[in-house]
């Protein structure tokens, strides 16, 4: 029984460390802003660090925990971004309280993305491996392209949707066009702040780790490890696949809402497979199933290209080379050994051991 208590402590301790690191990083950033030591470049990136981190940990739920490769994750972010922005822009004069409006926008973005997660999940999760990857890629592109031609507006009579142009919405004089095809939604209130981003990141993180360390999480991981054996012990495979996939999608939706409320305009063309692949790179570099690693990788790889701007045309070339080097070193056995030797835990552990001896 004693060992068991230790084990629970270990996973909780791990989570505390991650959340502690996020809070410390947040405190450092805030103090830098207050003292004026942070460059404008970095200040503008702070919220994007949060939503890319949320994207990375949510994709890790599908790829690392459920073990299914998804290449359409940006699609769910797109849905969240549009649903949230649509709500905020329509309600900007109705709901004055920014906090309530933005909270509702987040819930709506998450709900829409989660709903699409369920619908797409039901359709695609009977596939596995490469086939699933291709189909999710296709769905991601479908979402992007449909939103690219969509015009949505409302007037007294209700919401009007058209796939042609703003004129064919047939709005009366009270009408407002919100989604303008390829131009997307502009003029969204900029409600997202670094503080809210960090809070959402911590909440998303807690949702995922609590899910993983529960009955449902074990079921999800058992499907990843051996779906035939999981079925033989009575695990409802379809249910848990869709559960994991839709939670992952809903959290991507949250990241999307954060995105669309950070910059005041949002276009669907931003959410192509480039972004999906980029998020997957965060997950792979950070380690499958390793949420803390995903956050680190997301932050590192978002900052890197910005700091390489001085290289001008060679920027993405160098970025690619750095990425290759990081991948190689991150998983090289010698490097893992080195990390273990000089890990925080080990260093702290040796300090503790010394103090214990001295006492």
């Amino acid at each position, binding site marked *: *029984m004693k*060992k*068991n208590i*230790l*084990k629970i402590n270990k996973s909780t301790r791990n989570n505390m460390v991650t959340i502690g690191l996020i809070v410390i990083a947040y405190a450092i950033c805030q103090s830098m802003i207050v003292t004026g030591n942070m460059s404008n470049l970095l200040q503008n990136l702070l919220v994007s660090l949060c939503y890319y981190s949320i994207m990375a940990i949510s994709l890790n739920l599908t790829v690392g925990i459920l073990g299914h490769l998804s290449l359409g994750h940006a699609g769910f972010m797109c849905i969240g971004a549009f649903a949230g922005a649509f709500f905020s822009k329509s309600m900007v004069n109705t709901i004055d309280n920014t906090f309530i409006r933005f909270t509702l926008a987040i819930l709506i973005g998450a709900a829409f993305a989660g709903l699409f997660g369920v619908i797409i999940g039901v359709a695609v999760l009977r596939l596995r491996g490469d086939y699933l990857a291709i189909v999710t890629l296709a769905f991601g592109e479908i979402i992007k392209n449909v939103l690219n031609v969509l015009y949505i507006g409302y007037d007294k009579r209700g919401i009007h949707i058209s796939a042609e142009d703003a004129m064919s919405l047939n709005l009366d004089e009270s009408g407002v066009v919100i989604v303008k095809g390829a131009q997307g939604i502009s003029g969204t209130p900029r409600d997202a702040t670094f503080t809210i981003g960090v809070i959402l990141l911590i909440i998303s993180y807690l*949702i995922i780790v*609590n*899910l993983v*360390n*529960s*009955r*449902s*999480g*074990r*079921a999800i*991981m*058992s499907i*990843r*490890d*051996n779906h*035939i*054996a*999981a*079925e*033989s*012990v*009575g*695990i*409802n*495979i379809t249910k848990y696949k869709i*559960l994991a996939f839709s939670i992952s999608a809903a959290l991507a939706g949250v990241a999307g809402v954060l995105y669309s409320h950070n910059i005041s305009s949002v276009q669907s063309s931003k959410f192509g497979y480039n972004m999906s692949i980029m998020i997957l790179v965060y997950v792979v570099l950070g380690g499958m*199933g390793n949420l803390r690693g995903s956050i680190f990788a997301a932050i590192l790889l978002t900052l890197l290209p910005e700091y390489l701007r001085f290289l001008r045309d060679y920027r993405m070339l160098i970025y690619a080379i750095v990425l290759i080097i990081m991948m190689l070193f991150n998983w090289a056995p010698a490097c893992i050994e080195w990390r273990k030797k000089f890990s925080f835990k080990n260093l702290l552990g040796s300090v503790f051991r010394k103090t214990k001896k001295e006492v």
Partner: protein
Amino acid sequence: MEMLSVKNLGISFGGLHAVDSFSITVNKGELYGLIGPNGAGKTTVFNLLTGVYKPDMGQIILDGENITGRSAIEINKAGIARTFQNIRLFNNLSVLDNVKVGLHNDYKYSSIAGILRLPKYYKTEKAMNERAYEILEVFGLKEEANVLSANLPYGKQRKLEIARALATSPKLLLLDEPAAGMNPAETDELMETITLIRKKYDVTILLIEHDMKLVAGICEKIFVLNFGTELANGLPQDVLNNPEVIKAYLGE
């Protein structure tokens, strides 16, 4: 008292009748052995009984309940649990968590309770841990509870698979070559474990095995399968001395 009653079970793959009019009756509490040469269709019978394959014909009755054609999940819920010829553990989960996955349908709380860490979560997890440790103790795996199951030695992996199957509290346990790849000492230990779990869990067992020492040692009845059909069926001494059986195993 019949626990399992199978009548005229059959399945074909293309033109091959893998299992053909297979009938068996296993009484409650019995330990039945299913033997036969390689390719006789033993594992196919297990796959039919557990819903991995849907039978083309025949009927499977478990404890008075017709479970023919049901899915693997429903059949497990009805009370059949199994192990696999090639071990199928959840390799990246700890030994304890492997058993807890087996307890999934007996100890329930919603995903929301898990995510929000409601009191129900703590209460159920505690009860689950107690039950899981209890099962692990029977199999002598308590010390390894927090080891990754992939890192267990082979013999213990086999045991863990049985432990996980038993965690689903089955009425009928199907063991597919539990002693495969084990050395004689491990096989002896396995025989003891099987005897122990029969006493402790009141479970009926049907097992496939090639190790004749184990089969003759613990099975109360033996069914011999050859080319998908019954070759012999009955008490061990009769079956194992049957000239047909010897011929099927050793050739003429």
